[in-house]
Structure formats: structure tokens, C-alpha cells
């Protein structure tokens, strides 16, 4: 592990999925780390491999995904490599829900419709904290109150279809945090919610994080949310991390052409009304039979022929704690290739 304060360190993670048409190289050598108490944002378009990476940390990917690399976790029993633990064994189950928790995008389908919300939250409590029926019920109801579910006592015995979307997301958060985990992985938790509810949920997560001294891996494609919630950001494209750094650095001083394109394509307060929003040409290709070289080559305005389509770029430091994987950084094509202000 890098630092004493590091909770999770992912080293060179590769995830391949076997399909009829070939092997999908979904995650191609991802490395990052999360320290205690900090929020790392993982940003990227749909299909870049964010969800797979997150699920790999909990080892809940499907059988047809073959994973390699290292995921080091600073658990109660010392540092373990999650990828080396048997996926159905008791060790990993002692980590899931208790030391690392995850919340998902659509809370409606995260609960089984056949059991009450209380039953499902309590399942976590009883598994990891106490088997005593009365005590565990109390603890679960306490947590429900803490996430802002009104009438928690009554709601405990209700079924998922009796809850609204926002309520369900709160319940999901309660379920994830009831055991006070070290790391919370939030996979686009607000994408499916109303804007006003979104704000509330984000506030809630921030509050709880401070109170529980928790680390958060916040996955999203919404740059506004990243700015609000995260300390550091990792930008992902086509299964690779192309840039990482502190959040202000990335937003004020983006270096990778993809990051620059992303930042440029977002509304900014104060921009002129008549300006068109910038958008990156082309679409994300399918990670099947990818050509050699940088994955962003086809859509990049700064590309250097003969270099970028031949060799994979390695991460280089361009500032304090700011890393970029790009051949063109600092080159002439980079200066003149951007067409955005």
C-alpha cells in the first residue's frame, strides 16, 4: 500500500468479458487509490468500465468476467487482496456490507418486492452487528431515521412498492451505512432521481461521510456533482484512467484532450448565450478488437500520427498529485488542437 492512510489501492486492474463476438476488454489496466475520509470521483461516459471497476472491488462481477490485477484493501484483518479471496467465501462476505458497501443507480430494483424494507435493512444488521432480534431492529430503525425517513417505525414494516424513489434511495443508503463501513461505493446514486431529491441525497451522503469518517468512491457522469462532492477526480475513458488529480486542478487546468472536451461541453455560469456548447466528435467505440495505441485516437484533435496510434500513453505527472496519460501533453499539436475557450 502506498500510504498509511490509504483505504483502497487498485493496481493494474484488467477485466475481460467473453462474448460470442470475441473478448471485450472492458477495463484495461486501471490504477488508483482512495485515502481515509476522502471522496474520489470516477467520471466517464456510459460503457467506459466504471461500474465493472466498482463491482470488482466487492468481487460481485459475473462469472463471465475474468479479472486480473490487484485490489488491496486495508481491512480489519490487515491488508488483503480482494481479487485473491474466494468469491463465495466467508472472508469476502465479512467485507461486503460491513467494511465496504455499495449503493446503486436505481433504488427501485435494489430491493426484493417480497420482503419489507425493514427486513432487508435488518438483514445487514443481523449479519454483521448482532443477531439479537430486538437490538438489531432498533439499530436499523435508528439508521433509517438518520437518513431522513420520516415515520421510520411504521416504514420499517412496509414494502418497497409503498416507497417513493427518493425514499428508496434513502433506504438503500441506510442499508449500506448501517454497519459503518470504511468505504462507500456510490454508483450513480442520483441519476434516476428528481433534481430536488438529488440535492437532498447528495447533502445526506456528505453529512454522513463526515460523521462516520468514511471514504467514498463516487461514480458519475455528471460533472456538476463531481465538483460538489469530490476531493479528487479520476477520468476514465474506454477502460483506462486518462487523468487524475485534485478537483480544482482538473476543472481549472485540464490536460488530457478528453477531459478538456468534457469540461468544455458543460454549461458554465457566465458564458455567452449565443455560444454553442462544445461536443466531442464521434462516439465511444466498442471495446472489442481495439486497435493499438491510445483509445481516444479517433476522436482526438491533438493526436500525433505515428505515436498516438502505436503506443499506449503512460501516466506522467503534470502538477502536484496531477497525472495524465497522453503523448500530446505539452506538444505543439496540443496547443493548437483545442478549439474551445
Amino acid at each position, binding site marked *: 500500500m502506498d500510504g498509511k492512510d490509504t483505504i483502497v489501492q487498485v493496481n493494474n486492474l484488467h477485466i475481460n468479458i467473453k462474448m460470442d463476438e470475441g473478448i471485450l476488454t472492458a477495463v484495461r489496466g486501471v490504477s488508483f487509490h482512495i485515502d481515509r475520509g476522502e471522496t474520489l470521483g470516477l467520471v466517464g461516459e456510459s460503457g467506459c468500465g466504471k461500474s465493472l471497476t466498482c463491482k470488482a472491488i466487492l468481487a460481485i462481477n459475473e462469472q463471465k468476467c475474468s479479472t486480473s490485477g490487484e485490489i488491496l484493501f486495508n481491512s480489519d484483518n490487515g491488508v488483503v487482496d480482494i481479487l485473491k479471496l474466494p468469491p463465495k467465501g466467508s472472508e469476502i462476505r465479512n467485507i461486503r456490507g460491513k467494511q465496504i458497501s455499495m449503493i446503486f443507480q436505481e433504488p427501485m430494483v435494489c430491493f*426484493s418486492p417480497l420482503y419489507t424494507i425493514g427486513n432487508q435493512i435488518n438483514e445487514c444488521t443481523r449479519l454483521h452487528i448482532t443477531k439479537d432480534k430486538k437490538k438489531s431492529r432498533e439499530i436499523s430503525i435508528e439508521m433509517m431515521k438518520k437518513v431522513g425517513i420520516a415515520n421510520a417505525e411504521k416504514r420499517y414494516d412496509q414494502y418497497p412498492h409503498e416507497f417513493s424513489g427518493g425514499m428508496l434511495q434513502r433506504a438503500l443508503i441506510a*442499508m449500506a451505512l448501517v454497519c459503518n463501513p470504511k468505504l462507500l461505493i456510490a454508483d450513480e446514486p442520483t441519476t434516476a432521481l428528481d433534481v430536488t431529491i438529488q440535492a437532498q441525497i447528495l447533502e445526506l451522503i456528505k453529512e454522513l461521510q463526515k460523521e462516520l469518517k468514511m471514504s467514498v468512491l463516487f461514480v458519475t457522469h455528471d460533472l456538476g456533482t463531481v465538483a460538489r462532492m469530490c476531493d479528487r477526480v479520476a477520468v476514465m475513458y474506454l477502460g483506462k484512467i486518462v487523468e487524475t488529480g485534485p478537483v480544482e486542478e482538473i476543472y481549472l487546468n485540464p490536460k488530457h484532450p478528453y477531459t478538456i472536451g468534457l469540461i468544455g461541453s458543460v454549461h458554465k455560469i457566465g458564458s455567452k448565450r449565443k455560444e454553442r456548447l462544445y461536443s466531442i466528435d464521434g462516439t465511444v467505440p466498442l471495446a472489442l478488437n481495439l486497435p493499438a495505441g491510445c483509445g481516444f485516437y479517433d476522436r482526438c484533435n491533438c493526436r500525433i500520427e505515428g505515436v498516438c496510434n502505436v503506443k499506449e500513453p503512460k501516466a506522467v505527472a503534470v502538477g502536484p498529485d496531477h497525472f495524465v496519460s497522453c503523448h500530446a501533453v505539452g506538444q505543439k499539436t496540443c496547443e493548437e488542437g483545442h478549439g474551445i475557450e
Partner: protein
Amino acid sequence: MRDYILKRILMFIPTVLLMSVIVFFIIQLPPGDYITSYVSRMSAEGEVFTAQDIANLREQYGLDRPWYIQYFKWMKNIITEGDFGYSFAYSRPVWTVIMSRLPLTVIITLIIMIFTYVVSLPIGLYSALHQYSVGDFIFTGIGFLGLATPNFLLAIILMFASFKLTGDPLIGLFSEEILREGLNISNIGSFLKHLIIPIFVIGTGNTCGVIRTIRAQMLDEITRQYVLTARAKGVSERTIIYKYCLRAALNPVVSGLAGSLSSLFSGSTISAIVMNMAILGPVLYEALKTQDMYLAGTILLTQGFLVVVGTLLSDIVLAWLDPRIRYAERSS
């Protein structure tokens, strides 16, 4: 939950009434009536009937009125006196004829049903969890064959096989011993032996259906998001399968309970004819051939009635199993 049950019970009555109308209509569809076939049979043996004789016979049995009047008379008798009519062929009240066979029919049907579910649930579960394994293929293959072979022919083949192998074709439900001495502990073994072929023949169709349903549903459930969420909480695989997946997969199985009851009555009919079993099926067949109207009608009505009761029960079990259904009824 209580409201749901009450509502179902209330709907039960008009359904049964409607059923009785339809059944009666169908029964009296064949041209002619009992008298016609009676006369033609008697004539073949040499008896002579004048037109007046025939008319008298008709009036005597009340067969000279239009069908809806006959229906009303029949219904009235059922409701007020529990009298289901008179069997022309057996010269006895219909109810006595039926009662001599009904208990056995119900027992056999229940045994076969229990057998079906006890066998098919574990097999379906295994098939789903070990998809594409050798076991899965074997069970699926047998399942298909079982579905494809008409019951009665399976019966013939099995009886033939039993005859060749053991010298005893296991015709009928009761060996001569039982017929002489009645059923008791010592010869219950023989009864059970005779049950093997009927269970196999009548039960296979259903068993295969349930296996396929469970397999498909389990495969579906395993990929659900809430399974992933549960796993992310640290729940063991075993709990996931039994607490979450299986309970959800039981949904269509319970819905299909009534249907399987119906198909059991159906399948047992022809098989019983071929295997010479003393249940209701063969009686119905004879009644239809001789146009013994009230007997045929009552048998059909009884079977239909039992299925509707089955539907009611399975609906209640389903509502207990799946909270969404109670909620939907409440809110609609």
C-alpha cells in the same frame, strides 16, 4: 388480505353458475338424447318401439322440453334438494354414481399432484443452478419426451414393459386381492405398486412443465439487481437462492396450480380408460357415448367446480406469497 379473499369468494359464485349453464348447453348439444341411443340399442336387440312409445319415454324422463327449461329444473333440484338428476344408464341418482368414484378420484389426483411438485421442484432448482451441465441436459431431455408423448400411449408402453419384465401388467388400481379383501395394511403395497404407472403416466406432463417453469424463472431471478445488492451486503449464496430467488420463482408455479389440477383431470380421463382405473374418467366417457345427460353434466360440473376452488385457493396462496398483489388489489 382479508378484503382480497372476500372479493375472490364473491366472484366465485357467478363463475360457478355460468359454468353450469355452459356445461349443460354443451351436454345437450348432441343431436337426439338418451332416448335416441337407448331406442337404437334396444332396436338392435330386436325390441320394437312405436312413435308413441318414444314420446312417452321422453315425457317420462322430462326430455321433451326445450333445453333451458331442462336446465332450470336441473338447477332448481340441485340448489333446493341437492339432487343432481337421474342417471339413465345406471338407473340410480347421479350423485350415488359419482360418489362411488369421487373419493378415489380425488385421492389419486392429490397423490399425483404432490408427487409432481415434490419431484419437480428440486429438479428444476438443480437444472437452473447447474445450467448446461450433463444433469441439466438429461432432465431437460426427459422433460421434453414426457411432454411429447400422449398420456394414454405412455400408459400402454409402460404396461407392456411391466408385463414383459414382471409378468404383471398392473392393469387397474386394485389387484384381485384387494378386490376380495378390501384395502388394508398388508395389501397397500399392491395398491402402491399399481399406482406407479398412473403416477408416471398422468404426472409426467405436469412435472415436466413445472421443471421448465422453475428453471426459467430461477435463471431469470438470478440476474436481478436485488440479488446483486444482496450479494453486496454480504448475504450468503444459499440465502440468496432460497430466500430471494426461489420464493420469487414460485410465483408462476402457484399460479399454475389450478391449471395443473385441470390438466390432471384431463390427463387422467383417457389414461383411466386405457388402464381400466375405477375413477370418474371412464364413467364420463360412457355417459357421453350414451348421452346420459345428467350424469355427464354433473361430472363435468364437479371437475370444473373443483378447479375453480383450486383457483381460489391458489390465488390466496399467491397473495400471501407476493405482497404486490394484495397492494394492487387494494389500490385498484
